[in-house]
């Protein structure tokens, strides 16, 4: 019964993962038949590569910002949606559409929004008399990563609205009511009554957002190509450039193993978190 799945999964997933670990020990262009065994030299190079650190740092920034922004937006908007049912339902349905949209489209549309000539953002700032804030959003090293983060969170937050809706609706009604009877303010109700009940949602959301952050690739590819001045370089994109642009497949595989370790840590954490609950 398990044979087809095991076969497919082993050949097209597990084998490449293991092979990647092996390849990281070679100097190899990815195209030539010659591979030169160089031991851990790729990792040594990695540890001295400022671009790798930059990519790592940016990836971490993305993860931290996305965790905070998406969990906050997810909770706040789910909470408000439940307070006003009709508009809440409409919003909630709309919020998931960006999540179901291809990253290529998200990246393309937001590149246009940020465009200094035809984009609507600068235009909007003009209209609001905030012309001094106008930017070449994606071309300015100090705003490029920020701009990508806007697009990324716009795409992703809807999922967590749904998550928190599910979570909030599973909280028994009488808890809200008794909080009200006790005269607790909204804020206190949230902190002392609601949040502890949403622990699972928060933990799963946290894990999924971190996972998505380390997979950041398409938006960088479409919106900035890692620039300007490498300010939007991230791990997955640096790996791609190393292997397929600079033809350093072995080096790329070494970066892949860094991502592999991260993925295994996340999986371990996930299993532990869900287990602890049971």
């Amino acid at each position, binding site marked *: *019964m*398990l044979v*087809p*799945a*095991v076969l*497919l*999964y082993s*050949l*097209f*997933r597990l*084998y*490449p*993962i293991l*092979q*990647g670990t092996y390849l990281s020990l070679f100097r190899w262009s990815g195209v030539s038949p010659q591979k030169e065994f160089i031991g851990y030299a790729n990792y040594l190079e990695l540890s001295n590569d400022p671009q790798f650190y930059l990519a790592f740092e940016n990836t971490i920034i993305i993860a931290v910002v996305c965790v905070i922004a998406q969990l906050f937006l997810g909770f706040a*908007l789910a909470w*408000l949606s439940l307070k*006003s049912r009709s*508009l809440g339902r409409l*919003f909630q349905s709309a*919020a*998931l*559409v960006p999540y*179901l*949209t*291809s990253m*290529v*489209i998200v990246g*393309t549309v*937001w590149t*246009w*929004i940020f465009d200094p*000539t035809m*984009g*609507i953002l600068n*235009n909007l700032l003009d209209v609001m008399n905030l012309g001094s804030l106008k930017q070449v959003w994606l071309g300015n090293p100090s705003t490029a990563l920020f701009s990508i983060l806007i697009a990324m969170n*716009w795409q992703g937050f809807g*999922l967590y609205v749904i*998550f928190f809706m*599910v*979570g909030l609706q599973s909280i028994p009604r009488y808890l809200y009511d008794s909080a009200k009877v006790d005269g607790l303010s909204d804020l206190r109700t949230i902190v002392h009554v609601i949040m502890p009940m949403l622990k699972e949602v928060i933990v*799963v*959301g946290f894990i999924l957002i971190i996972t998505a952050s*380390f997979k950041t*690739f*398409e938006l960088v*590819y479409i919106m900035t190509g890692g620039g300007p001045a490498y300010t939007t370089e991230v791990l*997955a994109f640096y790996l*791609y450039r190393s*292997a397929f642009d600079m033809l350093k497949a072995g080096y790329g*595989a070494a970066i*892949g193993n860094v*991502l592999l370790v991260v*993925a*295994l840590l*996340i*999986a371990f954490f*996930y299993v532990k978190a*869900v287990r602890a609950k*049971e």
Partner: protein
Amino acid sequence: MTAVYKGIKRSSSKFITYAILLVATVIVVYPFLWTFLMSLRTNPEIFANPWGLPTDPVWENYVVAWTQGNLGVATVNSAIITMGSLVILAAVSPITAYALSKPIFGRRLLFYALLAGMFMAPQVFIIPLYVLLNQLGLIDTHLGLVLVYVAGCLPYCVIIIRAAFLGLPQALEDSARVDGLSTFQTFRRIMLPLAMPSVYTALIIEGIWIWNDFFYPLILTRSREMFTLPLGIAIFRGGYMIQYGPLSAGTFISMIPVVLLYLVFADLIRRGVAGGVAVKGSTRS
């Protein structure tokens, strides 16, 4: 605090709630609307006023996208690859999920292998995967992408469907046994029909994911004839001069199937994406 004051306070907080939700809805929806409006305009019009409405709708933009932009071919490719992957996933994942819901040898290992794969960025193994497909002669083919997608989507499908099997009462299976059904018959006739909603959910979610994916086609295809929609759009965009109208049209075309699916199966999709929270005990092994 007087009753009147309280009333004002309540209605003003209601107003703020409405205002925030309205602004949030506009921020979510407007970029799509903007893109749609641009798909009916010309470059000079767009540059003159990005907010403007189409004065004389340029429907030709859709024709240009479909033919010159090569998106017609890309749509066919995306459809073949998505459907092909889903057919194989539909055949393979329920039975795998069922087997993994039973105490069989090696299931813990396989389950963790699936779980670890789910958290991995495809970049981790893309280089060896490229080499492998090259050796098998599957680069730049539909089959190559289909096999990669099946392997990639197995973890989510199996985990979601397995949770549905685990949620069914054991008594059902016991009585099927008493009636003399074999394990496979029990699966096929009793258990699978009951777990079907989870199968649809998993397939719809993964179908949307495959339809939208950009990275695998970027690496594993070469020729224009093999491009999928997201790759086609990215390439079309990278042309000499950006034709905003046709490009917006292409963007819109590629979104239609997903939006239709969402309109029809909103609840199923919402439940599917919430799977992460809803699937309790998903790691019980």
